[in-house]
């Protein structure tokens, strides 16, 4: 399989980890709530520049797994290394610098509804007491990346669901993260808006080569990311030549309380696993 990608235009963020070391390394992780296990013994890695698409039916624990990676939840057992640092036993204060290197897009956007879009997107910079002029300029820059520059002074309540999701992406990108975590970024959106979001995610992957995990139960979005690349000249996602797929975009599937699948799109489509096949059909 060949891979066709646009060259990275910029090396974002602080010094990236050495290419051999995974950005995320999850080993034997189990978690449950109220004595009911959600999943057990889950292991996978995310290498620099790699995109892992986490599939699975609703309510299987995909968002939980994403929150574990960011240290928002702690596992009952197992080990999670984020940027090479073991985070399962790390104090909350020690997690903040690692989270600052990570951008997270929540399921419903999770924008702060009492703040303007400018303050939402620039939240991290405001907390770091960056100069107002610089905040304004960086917020405008990242809002223009998601095509929502005109919303600068608006409040989240006056935006549509898709626009809110795009603002959430802008907020996740403002700090130039080394890892992006997308929690069902297209869930509940119409196909046109979903395509816009997928285009933004593809743009971030292909232009900035940011490592990412995307949770979704929409196969069409997952396959679109695998079979398309972002074309910087046209500013849109274009299909890869027939038979080619993006090799850095691979799949994980959660089901029946464990990781059912970890591999490429080709392996996914040719798997014998009954659960995976049923999900795909």
């Amino acid at each position, binding site marked *: 399989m060949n891979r066709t990608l646009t060259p990275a235009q910029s090396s974002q963020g602080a010094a990236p980890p050495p290419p051999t070391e995974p950005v995320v390394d999850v080993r034997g992780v189990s978690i449950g709530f109220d004595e009911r296990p959600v999943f057990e013994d889950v292991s996978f890695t995310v290498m620099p520049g790699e995109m892992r698409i986490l599939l699975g039916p609703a309510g299987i624990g995909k968002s939980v797994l994403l*929150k574990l990676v*960011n240290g*928002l939840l702690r596992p009952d057992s197992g080990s999670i290394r984020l940027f090479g640092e073991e985070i399962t036993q790390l104090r*909350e*204060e020690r997690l*903040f*610098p690692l*989270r*600052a290197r*990570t951008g*997270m897009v*929540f*399921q*419903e956007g*999770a*924008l*702060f*509804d009492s703040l303007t879009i400018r303050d939402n997107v620039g*939240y*991290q910079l405001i*907390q770091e007491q960056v100069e107002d002029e610089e905040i304004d300029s960086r917020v405008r820059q990242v809002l223009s990346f998601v095509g929502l520059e005109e919303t600068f002074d608006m409040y989240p309540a006056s935006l549509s669901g898709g626009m809110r999701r795009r603002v959430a992406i802008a*907020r996740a990108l403002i700090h130039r993260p080394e890892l992006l975590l997308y929690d069902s970024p297209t869930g509940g959106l119409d196909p046109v808006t979903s395509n816009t979001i997928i285009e933004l995610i593809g743009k971030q992957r292909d232009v900035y080569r940011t490592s990412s995990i995307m949770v979704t139960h929409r196969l069409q979005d997952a396959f679109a990311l695998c079979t398309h690349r972002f074309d910087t000249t046209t500013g849109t996602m274009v299909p890869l030549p027939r038979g080619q797929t993006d090799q850095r975009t691979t799949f994980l599937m959660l089901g029946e309380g464990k990781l059912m699948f970890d591999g490429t799109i080709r392996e996914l489509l040719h798997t014998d696993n009954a659960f995976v096949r049923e999900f795909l059909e």
Partner: protein
Amino acid sequence: MATSTIDRNAKQFVLTVQEYTLFAWRALINFFTPPIYWSDFLIQADVIGVGSFLIVMLTGFFTGCVLALQSTATLEAFGATSVTGRFVALTMIRELGAVLTGIMVSGRNASSMASELGSMVVTEQIDAMRALGVDPMRKLVTPRIFACITMLFFLTILANAFGILGGAAVTVVLNHQNGTQYFSMAWQGLRFPDILQGLVKPLFFGYIIASIGCFNGMKTTGGTEGVGRSTIAAVVWSSVLIIVADYLISQLMLSLFV
């Protein structure tokens, strides 16, 4: 079956008390280590202090009126209507000023803290804040607790002042007594322990109101219905704990100063 339910509920209660204790302690010590969010403290001080001024003023004033009205009949029987001022001032400053202000602010602000933070929890805004590298305990909880302690202290002083004024209004206008005598008796009747008691209580009440309100908000589960449950729990528990704390502080102060 019944035993296991009692067992489970007892364990849950102990766990909640333990969680609350750790939560309230962490929120308290956060104020003495950086980062301290002063702007959030000022915003909350405005919301709690300025926002509650009118209701506290009205509550204090009419409580003073009622105290003067109710005491007149009894005092008249002993020919002691001249001590109405002393009675109103002592009752307001030692007890009612702090307790009523606490309960009014609890109804207004413990509920708003629980519902505001609860809504943020169910819409994942708290998780988003953590994901953005900001500690919600420091950013949201600690400023509310210290703003509530500070403003309840001043609101109680206001409630006391307006209570004494309300008593004076009834004494002078309705009972046709001498206003100078009322204020003079009120002044002479007060001792340092009375004022100390009246000023120590709001510090504890403010801590109870904000910590209970924030704790219930941050522990919200179960969507919008859960927000409603948290709001009710915040008002009920903070009001009950204010009365309990009032008794304990009164007992302590009386044993120290009598």
